């Protein structure tokens, strides 16, 4: 298989990288991670309006730009590189794909334009106690109430759950697991911020107490695996952006730091470590790009999505650890920015499944 980005895709990457460099430097990340909402509404509007980021992968019929997983992957990679604080993963990727893949035509028309232009912030609530994106883990109960439904139970690890306007919730009824749309501000929805290690990605726990809900799509036929594959592919691309940022930071610092009268980057032991890391990052990127292309081609991407998530998140952790080590004493201080990426690397390693769980999922998808 041959894969290369087109000149236009590279140009888009360059422009987006500049936008994020301007709007999401480490000082902005530090400022926003200390806020409850965790993002800058003006920058979010510009990202969704002027740059059309949130609708990049959504069809034009629903207010999107009509591109696919490869272009979304570029957007995610660049965001991961700068730790862009915004509800992009939650709203554009997770909720966007959930509505697109599960919703009826009317529901897509009702929900996706708002997600695409950023005026609606949505998220999905799948995981519960075990933190798994899996039907077997879902205990939140859905029961009919009048013309609609009501939900009872608790969801955990909901990305941007505190700030979302709309929640896409997986719940169990007699027919099996379905997805439901819940107004996040409705009576019976109680949201609390989770205590997280990575403050650049806000998570919430959400309790539903007879919360009014509307069925998304068909009862008992939530396409959780297809949504999960699409989300994983995007997430893996975000992760490799972070890993690349750690490699770049390590290279830049070692070319600057002088010891024994020469830069430490000139020492062979440092060169070898950086070269090994480069190989790892490139392999993880290849896995992430290939998964995005496979999804774009309409093939089943389960194996490649899980492979990409497993490979990318392991490399991100390794890159973050190496970056701290190569920075020496300054590397683990609060003033140095490396810890911001280290924490994102750690949260990305376990969020939506550990590398071990994804290897198992990949093998099952391959029939092994």
């Amino acid at each position, binding site marked *: 298989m041959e894969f290369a980005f087109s000149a236009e895709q590279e140009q888009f990457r360059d*422009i*987006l990288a500049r936008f994020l460099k301007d709007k999401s430097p480490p000082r902005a990340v530090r400022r926003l991670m200390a806020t409850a909402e965790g993002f800058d509404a003006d920058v979010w509007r510009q990202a969704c309006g*002027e*740059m059309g980021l949130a609708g*990049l992968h959504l069809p034009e019929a629903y207010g999107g*730009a009509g591109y696919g997983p490869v272009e979304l992957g570029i957007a995610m990679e660049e965001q991961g590189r700068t730790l862009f604080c915004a509800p992009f993963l939650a709203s554009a990727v997770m909720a966007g794909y959930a509505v697109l893949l599960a919703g009826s035509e009317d529901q897509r028309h009702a929900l996706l334009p708002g997600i695409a232009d950023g005026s609606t912030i949505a998220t999905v609530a799948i995981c519960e106690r075990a933190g798994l994106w899996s039907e077997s883990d879902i205990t939140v109960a859905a029961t009919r109430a009048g013309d609609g439904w009501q939900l009872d139970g608790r969801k955990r690890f909901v990305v941007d759950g505190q700030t979302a306007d709309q929640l896409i919730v997986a719940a169990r009824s007699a027919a099996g697991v379905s997805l439901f749309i819940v107004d996040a501000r409705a009576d019976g929805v109680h949201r609390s911020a989770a205590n997280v290690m990575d403050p650049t990605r806000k998570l919430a726990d959400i309790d539903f107490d007879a919360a009014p809900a509307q069925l998304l799509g068909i009862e008992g036929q939530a396409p959780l695996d297809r949504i999960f594959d699409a989300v994983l592919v995007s997430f893996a691309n975000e992760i490799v952006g972070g890993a690349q940022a750690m490699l770049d930071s390590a290279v830049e610092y070692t070319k600057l730091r002088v010891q024994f009268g020469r830069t430490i980057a000139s020492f062979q032991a440092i060169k070898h470590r950086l070269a090994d890391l480069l190989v790892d990052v490139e392999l993880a990127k290849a896995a992430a790009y290939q998964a995005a292309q496979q999804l774009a081609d309409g093939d089943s991407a389960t194996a490649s999505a899980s492979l990409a998530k497993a490979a990318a998140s392991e490399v991100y952790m390794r890159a973050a650890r190496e970056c701290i080590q190569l920075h020496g004493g300054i590397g683990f201080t609060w003033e140095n920015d490396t810890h911001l990426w280290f924490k994102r690397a750690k949260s990305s390693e376990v969020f939506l499944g550990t590398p071990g769980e994804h290897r198992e999922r990949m093998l099952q998808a391959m029939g092994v």
Partner: protein
Amino acid sequence: MKILVPVKRVIDYNVKARVKADKTGVDLANVKMSMNPFDEIAVEEAIRKKEAGQAEEIIAVSIGPAQAQETLRTALAMGADRAILIQTDDIVEPLAVAKLLKAVVDAEQPGLVILGKQAIDDDSNQTGQMLAALLGWPQGTFASIVKVVGDGIEVTREVDGGLETVALTLPAIVTTDLRLNEPRYASLPNIMKAKKKQLDVKTAADYGVDISPRLKTLKVEEPAKRAGGIKVKTIEELVDKLKNEAGVI
């Protein structure tokens, strides 16, 4: 009204420029290049004029190597309607650029030419003024506000000590300062649309302009490295050093 916007491909503003080992110029091998930031402001201003219904067509023009097409594509993605590349691998000095632009102006007959006040690679700050002189057009340089008023424009200029507003009749030349606007970022759909917009490639010979250099660069050197600072114990010592060592008071 047509607006002509010259754009230059320069070393990216985030890149630390390095001098070639033989000191003949700046090393551009494998260096990221992008549109001169002041030219981006010029493109943005032209687009805003078009969006306000004050212009019908925006033509971006660049003079440089084949890769300058990328710079023009960026201008097209931002909102320019068509582009002209005058392709050359030679170093083109501001006077030659101004002469080529005059030829383009003669051919295209724009009502307004908006240029960056200077390019961040050579910081010449000459092209706009030279073009105005060659055309015999009024010029509003270092613009921080450009307003179309009746048949002319009012340009607020950033000058030493404050702001000066001048009224110009059209056609005219405007050079942009940093605070004129904040250029937009091109979206992916607009990048794709730009691919289909017209981009004509010409040569200096097509316009009959001699671009041979009038200047000779003798040597290029990096600025002297900043020496480390020192702490002084008393004000008297500080005054003494400022007077006798630095010679500034």
